[in-house]
């Protein structure tokens, strides 16, 4: 069942088009990833779905509630974790959670119980009485996630949840996301960390310059870069004429020299490595490693979007690992 439907969504700011005809849906219980560089339109898309930005054209609906008329009712079903923690600096962790629950009309007794449970679940019980401004970035992000789910939403929008935080906190947050997924929450995750999307999401859309350039399940997307069979050898050293010698001996195999001691072999049929090892042995080269290479989502992303990956990785620090 599609719990979120987005059709031909457009957001324009004067002459600038931030989101340009985006169409996708979220199936109940899945983690759907929006992957793209900064400025791709990920946050703007979320803002339109959460009521922080007006839709220029196109349509959106959540649990059958069509926007803009159904927005306020839909907001009850949505939990939002923005890219920057936006809780109240002056309130402590417990008060922040209680206040966020109160915004959803939850009674005092219920919100206090729920806040205590979440602080425990997120390992923040001890920090619960500390003001939010005294929290580390990782703790802030965890409390922001807790605030996003305190009203038990069916759908959770997570906007760059691990950006700018340390590796350990990022890992904890990824584990929390997986736990929320196990609890049956539908999650829309935006990220520019390819490994994160690959690890967490069932379906992924690549968003570049406001447009979805590819959308599918991980295996669907991987089909884009299936290159037959790829085997990589790490040798003691690769001489400059090695590729030529290999081509002479194995004309059916294509080669690519990765660096001074790493070489890749490509073939449409499975590669028998026994003749290759004998060949290197005869040349007096030691083989330190031989492994089969599987294409990664990163390969797909680079091929499809032509986005320079290093630039994208450097856009925001932290979070990986």
């Amino acid at each position, binding site marked *: 069942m599609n719990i979120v439907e987005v059709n031909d969504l457009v957001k324009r*700011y004067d002459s600038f088009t931030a989101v340009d005809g985006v169409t996708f849906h979220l199936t109940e219980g899945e983690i759907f990833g929006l992957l793209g560089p900064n400025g791709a339109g990920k946050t703007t898309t979320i803002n339109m779905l*959460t*009521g*922080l*930005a*007006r839709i220029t054209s196109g349509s959106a609906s959540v649990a059958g509630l069509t926007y803009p008329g159904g927005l*306020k*009712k839909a*907001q*009850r079903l*949505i939990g*939002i974790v*923005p890219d*920057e923690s*936006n*809780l*109240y*600096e*002056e*309130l402590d962790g417990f008060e922040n959670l209680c*206040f*966020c629950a*109160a*915004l*959803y*009309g*939850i*009674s005092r007794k219920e919100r206090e119980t729920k806040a205590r449970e979440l602080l425990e679940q997120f390992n923040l019980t001890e920090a619960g009485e500390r003001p939010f401004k005294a929290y580390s970035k990782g703790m802030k992000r965890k409390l922001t996630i807790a*605030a996003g789910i305190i009203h038990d939403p069916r759908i959770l929008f997570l906007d760059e949840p691990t950006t700018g935080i340390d590796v350990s906190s990022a890992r904890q947050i990824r584990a929390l996301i997986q736990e929320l997924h196990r609890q049956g929450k539908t999650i829309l995750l935006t990220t520019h960390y390819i490994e994160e999307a690959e690890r967490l999401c069932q379906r992924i859309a690549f968003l570049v310059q406001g447009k979805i350039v590819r959308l599918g399940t991980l295996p669907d997307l991987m089909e884009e870069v299936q290159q037959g069979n790829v085997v990589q050898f790490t040798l003691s050293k690769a001489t400059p004429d090695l590729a030529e010698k290999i081509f002479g001996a194995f004309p059916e195999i294509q080669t690519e020299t990765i660096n001074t001691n790493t070489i890749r072999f490509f073939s449409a049929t499975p590669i028998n490595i026994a003749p290759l090892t004998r060949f290197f042995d005869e040349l007096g080269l030691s083989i330190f490693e031989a492994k089969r290479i599987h294409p990664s989502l990163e390969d797909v992303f680079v091929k499809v979007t032509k986005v320079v990956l290093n630039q994208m990785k450097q856009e925001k620090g932290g979070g990986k690992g």
Partner: protein
Amino acid sequence: MKSWIAFWNILKKDMRTYYLKPPNISWGIIFPVAWTLMLFVKSGGSVNIISLLPGVMCLSILFGTTSMLAVTITFERRNRSFERLLIAPVDLNLLIFAKTSGAILFGIVNAFFPVVMALFLTPLFDIAWFPVLADVFLISATSTFMGLFIAVSVSEVFEAQTFSNFFRFPMIFLCGLFIPIQDLPGFLKPLSYILPLTYGADILKSLISRDGHMGIAASFLILLVFCLVLFWFSMRNVKRKWIV
């Protein structure tokens, strides 16, 4: 019911986080004392507390509400905590009403600080306090909605302060509190009549020092219209500028 839980908690949080902070409470006390002392010195010591009271009350409300609301909302928008409210399933009118209620209450409390102080110096028994309270409420509401208008128009906290003064200082001198409107130069008089504080101050003068010039009922009506128009105008701007 659920919306009112949200309303009450927004109001409670604002009162606790902003309005009931010691610096603001001390502001509420120091400000009227400073104005009274200034006028006391100016008059050479022969000050009439009753005649000063409407002016000091009006200024306490005006300075308290306009800047507080403009600054707190701009501050929350800068650190993005205001987005928490916008994504909540609370009607925007109720949300803004909750945010402004704190400032209105702050204005009312500020207005009665000078009254309490005046009680130690002069009897205030023959004043109709219910209409005074109604007038104080309306002055507070109009000043708060002006603060909201300022909050919608600026993006930085310091701009909110500067922009507030742009409205407040001309109002002090044009509303008839310290310079009677009839004594103002002809070209300034029309300006006096388009300021809500002129009507609020005149009601207080009529009720407390008995030297108001306009009819109380008409002034109440005009003040109420100002209140509604400012709220409507601010809401229109909120919808246009905050949810783009």
